[in-house]
């Protein structure tokens, strides 16, 4: 099979998400190093380039020499130490007023994150992104989201959309418990880091008509 004959010229060209759905989009495009890094550094991920290293991380970088430490570490993880990796936040009515990191996010970085397939927003949502042909339509267009929602509401929406709608299909991006059969590479960590959430919130707030 030549790649040239993969797609009907009559229909929209290579839809990377559907095609790669599963084998490509959600995993393969995250290089293994990055995944490892993200796992070790749960509160932040390399995509944001900002992270506080925790003692546990230093330990894990010496793992090859300390087998016992690995076992202790994984026992600690299995025992539910994971949830503690999430920074705590306070919900007030339908929002989270305070920044998760204590700092404002970077809207430009947030835009890049929303467009990155590994972040997954664009699988379901569309928005004012003329450069991206492959946008989803399982969810509302993000255009004007900054008019409809306050920064604090957007923050809770990303952290845990099920607070707005218990049946929603939108994933909770800052949650690591109450999930079923999470893949080995993703277990125990939220989809996005606190810093990434703040970047995306800052960007969504700029989406005003």
């Amino acid at each position: 099979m030549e790649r040239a004959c993969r797609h009907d010229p009559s229909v929209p060209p290579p839809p990377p998400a559907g095609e790669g759905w599963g084998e490509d989009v959600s995993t393969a495009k995250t290089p293994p190093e990055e995944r490892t890094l993200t796992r070790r550094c749960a509160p932040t991920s390399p995509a944001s380039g900002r992270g506080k290293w925790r003692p546990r991380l230093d330990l894990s970088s010496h793992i090859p020499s300390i087998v016992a430490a690995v076992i202790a570490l994984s026992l600690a993880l299995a025992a539910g130490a994971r949830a503690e990796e999430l920074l705590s936040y306070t919900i007030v009515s339908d929002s989270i007023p305070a920044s998760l990191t204590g700092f404002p996010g970077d809207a430009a970085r947030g835009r890049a994150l929303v467009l990155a397939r590994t972040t997954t927003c664009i699988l379901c949502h569309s928005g004012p992104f003329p450069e991206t042909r492959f946008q989803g339509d399982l969810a509302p267009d993000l255009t004007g989201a900054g008019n409809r929602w306050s920064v604090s509401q957007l923050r809770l929406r990303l952290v845990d959309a099920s607070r707005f709608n218990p049946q929603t299909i939108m994933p909770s991006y800052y949650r690591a418990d109450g999930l079923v059969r999470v893949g080995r590479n993703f277990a125990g960590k939220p989809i996005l880091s606190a810093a990434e959430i703040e970047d995306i919130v800052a960007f969504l707030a700029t989406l005003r008509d």
Partner: protein
Amino acid sequence: MISWRAIAVATLFTAAPALLAGEIPPDARRSGYTFMGPDTRAMQDDDTTNPGMLFVLDGEALWAKKTGSASRACADCHGDARSSMKGVAARYPSFDKSLGRPVALDQRINLCRADHQQAAPLPYESRDLLALSAFVAHQSRGIPITAGDDPQAKPFVAQGRALFMQREGQLNLACTNCHDDNFDKRLAGAPITQGQPTGYPLYRLEWQTLGSLARRLRSCMTGVRAQAYDYGSPELVALELYLMSRARGLAMETPAVRP
């Protein structure tokens, strides 16, 4: 999909059908084929361009080849597949009395190898196993799916259905969220189908090869960042069985082509 929802609502109030909530009524069931563009359809329709037919031809050769320490070919027991295998794949996964559980078509082939040919099992997704499965399933092309009708299979259909409805993975999505509730919509530009298992094993252009239904299901699980069930696991077989029963009445297409 206004049409089938309307039909569903209408029938609910009149006939109270045996359908479970969220399920797609028989007359609204559509193969993935109907979601494809004309060129991919044409590729599937024409046996000379359908890349899956190469596997079917390989499977035909393997069907007649003596194998294992019993030195017996499939054909030595089953004769001409055109008649003996007609409609078989449309009933799989099928309940195996001695094992007390359903087995998928590729597992049946390996059981035959072990029991009747005294040959080693072929690995899942190996070319020979896919070729034999494609050859056998091809004999059912055009025949309506009836898998899951066997009363003994019912508990396993129910298990598969529960798995289909279960949210899982880091993205916390269930099969039903996409394939019952959102078919005809687009996931990052690609159409979402009803997830009907009509054409397996099938040639996926993205894979550049033939693949089994199990492979497809594992990709969807990886997609929601769940730990995919192992090939041959009871959970995957139950899901396959549920999907086949959910596709009841749709015609087999093996070897189908999908983008």
